[in-house]
């Protein structure tokens, strides 16, 4: 089995790991880097529980090859703990009762941050569209949408996460960043 050593920034911390080339970024984050906030739900990109940000763009880490993280900025839900907008979303989720079993929450929070960073004042419909890649089997979504709406109400322009452009969005993938 072919192994590859990659270097990247995980929640702002320079990280170096050696992984099998076919390993997913999700397995690498959970089992090699040891950050278990990001969840394995379906393994097929249907449920969004494994949502992370790569260079400031949200994606399903179960569909991402770990080797693709090489030279790039990876942000997981743990990395939002020190982020003003991330904290606002966390607080709003708690206050709105948007967390029941909690399994979808890390993915929801990361995706909510992506949504609010690109669209700071979304309508409820835009919030629904924004989280259409995240499944929740408990809440019926209403309280999650309430929480994201509440977080958007008093949100200041977000400080960029590592890898994001100054305007909070960076859709270009990380070319030759290493």
């Amino acid at each position, binding site marked *: 089995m072919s192994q590859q050593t990659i270097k990247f920034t995980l929640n702002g911390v320079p990280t170096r790991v050696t992984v099998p080339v076919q390993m997913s970024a999700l397995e690498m984050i959970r089992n090699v880097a040891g950050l278990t906030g990001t969840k394995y739900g379906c393994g097929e990109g249907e449920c969004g529980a494994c949502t992370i940000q790569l260079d400031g763009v949200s994606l*399903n880490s179960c569909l991402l090859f770990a080797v693709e993280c090489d030279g790039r900025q990876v942000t997981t839900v743990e990395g939002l703990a020190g982020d003003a907008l991330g904290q606002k979303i966390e607080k709003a989720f708690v206050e709105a009762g948007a967390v029941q079993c909690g399994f979808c929450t890390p993915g929801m929070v990361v995706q909510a941050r992506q949504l609010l960073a690109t669209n700071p004042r979304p309508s409820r419909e835009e919030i629904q569209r924004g989280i259409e890649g995240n499944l929740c089997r408990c809440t019926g979504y209403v309280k999650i949408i309430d929480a994201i709406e509440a977080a958007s109400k008093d949100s200041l322009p977000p400080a960029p996460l590592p890898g994001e452009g100054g305007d909070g969005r960076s859709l270009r993938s990380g070319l030759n960043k290493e």
Partner: protein
Amino acid sequence: MTALDNYVAPTSLEQAVVQLQELGEVTILAGGTDLMPQSHAGRVKFKRTLMNIRRIPELHGIVREGDEIRIGALTTITELMEHPLVREHLPLLVEAGDHFASAQIRNAGTVGGNICNASPAGDTLVPLMVLGAHVELASKPDDTLFRRSMPLPEFFVGPGKTRLAPAELLTAVRVPIPPKGFVARFHKFGTRPALDISAISIGVGGVLKNGVFTDVRVAFGAVAPTPVCGCAAQEVLEGKRLDAATIAAAAAAARDEVHPISDVRASAWYRKEMIHNMTKRILEDVSANH
């Protein structure tokens, strides 16, 4: 078949096509959104080398070249939808992108990957066919870089099968800028808006001038082993006014020319009915709004 034992991440097109020629057995990785689940499910076996092509600058970007828009193979669906050239000249692709999976997958999945995955239900394929797109392929069999181009419909051979040669890379898709008066529609029919594999999809495009529809292209997804031309419907529509009789004849022709299968998403009968009804609805919409 040997197990995966090598990983390469070329940083130029030149390097990539040379490696493809030399290494032989190579699995190409772009966005990974199809490759990862397909390899897990055993539907795709890794070849000896995994080649990550995402570090190749020549495969990124969207530019206008003469009367064409060149969309780099690594353009993600999100990048496609947000690009000013696409929004201005190819709004059909924006509409199709809006129905594509979820935000997370649109941020990772690439146009080139969607084409090379060659799913009969691939969401960008039908609209690209309606727009008359060509794929641009590159290889380096000897000392010179060899490029060729092919109309998109010819590229598809069957589910997951294309005419891409083993040592060849899909570098871009080229879309002619549609003429004045061009109207187009894309309709994807599934059970929910997000993350759904379509039961059928339909694209219609053409130039509508003084009520007459010309240069008509019709394409269907998920009704055959590849996305297909709705050639019979096209012929009915070409040069006609979009009146009730023409629309009815085109919808009937569309139903009769497709030969779908029954699977978990829909029965063959249902697919034919949907092709008929949605073709009719789309044409009525075009007729009423232009």
